[in-house]
């Protein structure tokens, strides 16, 4: 199976035409049009009417396009969102497997009605409550449409009744559970290093890169970006560096020599190279290639536009 490369997913408030029209310029792997928290209650209907056109607009740079819908309005929002060009739906506040099953069934109906390949639309799940975090396993395995899952940390703080301090990460357990259960289910966990997910803000690119890199080293596969300035450092952090690729090519060469000489355990720079290290080297090299392919796709789309 091809490796899913969705490093950055830029959130765009659908009711802000300026943000929508510029979204494709930021080089995000995915763009999510938001019908939920960035749209006030009184403008939900108006917002829905904007989706169809916005999908084509934000997708012109070859970003995958998602729509974040409202938990109380799944049917109406999905009906307004399922059009050609849509990659899937971001489902917030999920607490039970049934919510996923129902959303998946609704997507099947809409795929048929709108002439999309049945089963092609994906789901990104956001967990925002203790109940959701606890039931993560049944939630993310409820449908093969689920490709990514993350925590909405500010809503989770609200559910837990806490006002977290930036110095003390209250989500060590929740994020660890996210990484383990998602990986076990072959779903990608997404998120940024604490406290950025709780208090999204603008940061110098280098700091963002560090935070995203740490998130990657906690098992995350990408970041939902609240601001365009996050996209580039996030893309970089989730792309294996040339140094890392070179090191892992060396690991593969040293290990191959060792096998030929009759051992599968060989020292390299004080470390022990054996099967899992070689297996990981393969993954890093494959991931670098997949990232390069994704970047080439986006570049080709931009070239066509020009």
């Amino acid at each position: 199976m091809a490796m899913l490369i969705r490093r950055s997913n830029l959130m765009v408030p659908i009711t802000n035409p300026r943000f929508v029209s510029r979204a494709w310029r930021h080089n995000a792997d995915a763009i999510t049009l938001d019908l939920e928290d960035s749209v006030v209650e009184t403008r939900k209907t108006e917002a829905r009417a904007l989706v169809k056109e916005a999908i084509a607009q934000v997708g012109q740079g070859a970003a995958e396009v998602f729509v974040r819908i409202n938990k109380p309005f799944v049917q109406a929002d999905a009906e307004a969102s399922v059009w050609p060009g849509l990659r899937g739906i971001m489902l917030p506040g999920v607490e039970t497997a049934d919510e996923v099953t129902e959303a998946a069934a609704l997507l099947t109906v809409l795929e048929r009605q709108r002439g999309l390949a049945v089963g092609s639309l994906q789901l990104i799940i956001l967990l925002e409550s203790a109940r959701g975090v606890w039931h993560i396993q049944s939630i993310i395995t409820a449908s093969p449409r689920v490709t990514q899952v993350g925590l909405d940390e500010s809503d989770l703080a609200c559910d837990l009744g806490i006002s977290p301090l930036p110095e003390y990460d209250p989500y060590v357990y929740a994020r660890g559970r996210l990484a383990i259960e998602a990986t076990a289910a072959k779903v990608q966990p997404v998120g940024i290093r604490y406290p950025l997910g709780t208090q999204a803000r603008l940061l110098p690119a280098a700091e963002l890169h560090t935070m995203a890199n740490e998130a990657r080293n906690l098992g995350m596969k990408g970041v939902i970006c609240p601001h365009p300035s996050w996209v580039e450092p996030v893309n970089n952090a989730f792309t294996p560096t040339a140094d890392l690729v070179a090191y892992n090519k060396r690991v593969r060469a040293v290990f191959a020599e060792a096998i030929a000489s009759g051992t599968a355990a060989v020292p390299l720079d004080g470390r022990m190279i054996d099967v899992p290290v070689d297996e990981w080297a393969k993954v890093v090299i494959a991931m670098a290639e997949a990232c390069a392919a994704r970047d080439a796709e986006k570049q080709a789309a931009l070239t066509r536009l020009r």
Partner: protein
Amino acid sequence: MAQRLVRRSGLTMPVVTKRFVDNAWRRGCDYINLDLEDSVPQHLKAHARSLIKEAIPNVSKGGAEVFTRINHDYVLADLEAIVWPGLRRVNYPKAEYGAEIRQLDEIITRLERERGIRPGTVEIGANIETAVGVAYGYEIASASPRVKDFGGASGYDMSRDLGVEMFVGFDQFVYGKGECELIARTLGIEARSAPFVANTTGSVSDPEHAFRTAEAARKCGFRHGGGLNPAVVEPQNRGFTPSDEDVREAHWVLEQYRQLAGSGETWGEVNGRIIDRYEAARARDTLEWAELCAERNREKAEAVARVQAAMAEQTSRASA
């Protein structure tokens, strides 16, 4: 609970590397883990299996217990080749479901019967090395009474499964380790884990790091060490054994507790330290563990002395 086993240090080595196997008894470890898995190339698996039966008495003559790590995908062939008298434990890598452990148990039960091994004595080490293994940890750990301890959820395989780099400056495995520890303690078996001690170089032969990690692990209630390089054996033995100061302090705490109990109080403060039954229990645990460690050291020293005496005799006979 059964008497605690003393397994502070252990070397995992490819059974196909004769030099490692022949010198294993000299290393002073509490156990030797003969590897059939990741350190053995595919084309040597059959050869590796054929070496275990003879390696068992060879590596254990210095008093070490003998374990073998088998391959996740060759359970039957590996078990047939390794379950012989003297083998204490089968380490099963990448355990993911309870059914796998039940299958191992069945095969081991048959082999014990066929080969004159006391029933139920060969342990199963269920190594958790994947996210799925953590997710199904409870069913794995409770699948057989042969599982006497439980842990893992860190290391190269785990990092590969999660897609994280090794040797970063923070603990990437805190959730999985926590789950495994809770499962072990819930089931009343030994928890095999360690707190996070940064190792950003990834060295497997750093004695100072080995000591700090072992000491920190002991202070957190863990007793189980192990490594890949002989240089870490002595520091692990030392780090997992209560120091003289720890022992003195434990005696002092118990003495204070006795005086407290004599005065009819349940709680007191002496020199700024709380003295109560929890502290007393902790002190007793330290003394018991120190005694077990000392006993284990004597056992190993006697075994090594026997081997050396036999060797000396052989040499003098040869020269005579």
